[in-house]
């Protein structure tokens, strides 16, 4: 047993559907690892549910492939792809592409929202400063004794 046997899974010259036990174990462990990692993230509330669902699906797909490696060959034949590992790569690249595009879109949206929030904050800040400025003035003004501002205790000792 050496690296060559491990590579056998990717060798088209080997019999279709043949996977060495070592590769089988390796892929299965990886799939279990991915699933465990995602579940952990979800449980710690580090992932929104929509994303956890997405990645759990990926993990499940990986696990299924690990258990039934022949599935890849079947799918490849269905798609008319001669070389099964290419199917895996194609699906992976396509999937990742969609995910990245989706994230770009979501980032743009979040950024715009942060912008609007910051702009609104600037306006609100100015408005509160303005009202805070006028209130103490009413305090000391000639009509100060009638103002309801009297019972607002200011932390600022200056008038």
């Amino acid at each position, binding site marked *: 047993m050496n690296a060559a046997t491990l590579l056998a899974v990717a060798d088209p010259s080997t019999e279709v559907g043949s996977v060495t036990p070592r590769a089988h174990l390796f892929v299965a462990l990886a799939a279990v690892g991915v699933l465990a990692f995602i579940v952990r993230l979800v449980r710690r509330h580090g992932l929104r549910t929509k994303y956890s669902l997405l990645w759990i699906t990926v993990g499940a797909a990986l696990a299924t492939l690990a258990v039934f490696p022949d599935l890849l060959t079947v799918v490849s034949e269905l798609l008319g792809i001669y070389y099964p590992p290419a199917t895996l790569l194609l699906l992976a690249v396509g999937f990742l592409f969609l995910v990245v595009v989706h994230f770009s879109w979501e980032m743009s949206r979040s950024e715009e929202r942060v912008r609007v929030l910051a702009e609104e904050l*600037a306006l609100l800040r100015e408005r509160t400063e303005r009202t805070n400025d006028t209130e103490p003035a009413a305090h000391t003004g000639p009509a100060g004794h009638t103002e309801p501002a009297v019972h607002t205790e200011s932390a600022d000792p200056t008038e």
Partner: protein
Amino acid sequence: MNAKDLVIIPAFNESETLPSVLADLRRVLPGIDVVVVDDGSSDDTARVAAASPGVTVLRLPFNLGIGSALRTGFRYAVAEGYQRAVQLDADGQHDPGEVPRLLEALDGADLVVGSRFGRGATTYEVGHTRRGAMRVLQLALHLLTGRRFSDTSSGFRAFDRSVLEYFAVTYPSEYMESVEVLLQATYEGFRIAEVPVRMNPRAGGRPSTLRLGLAYHYLRVLVTLFVRTSRRRPAPLAIDHDVERDAAGDDPGTGT
């Protein structure tokens, strides 16, 4: 409802030049309201602006870029009920003395652009690369709107209430938004006029971007322009009071 006019000054690290700009404004236009939008400056811009009498300061919590700073100013103008507003640079390039001319031009337009080029404007020095890039943008805008703007990137502009309301929500946040906005306003059916104005050389501070960054921004704006057109059908063109009639004048006869 506010009978006064508002001057919106977006400022990012402009504490050096801002005091003189504000002093000039007060001297030339004593009655006008001024709002400085401090775009997350790391220097004393906000303090310097607040020290100037009659100036309102809006402080953004972090640097958002000129587009967002302006949009904040537009929001303020709309919220406070201003009917007209002028955008002015904090670096002293724009002469406050030209503000009344921009506001006057609002009588026949919704958006007025103070142009650095054209009759009545002082010769404004720009580098070859920059001029070339400006030409490309001009051409792109001409293709997309059918109009010619002599100064597509001027940040010396006046807006009436309808434009303020529109921009308070839609003003693009990215750099060089000034070009994009012309297209946006044209499509929205706003009447745009150009008024030649005098401009000063920069009194201080550094130009907003380095050359490489500039190239990227020009490219980005070009892409944005063309993407935008595919998004919306152009509205009928507004009547422009500043149209040059040269083209009609030298119409060649049919038989030579």
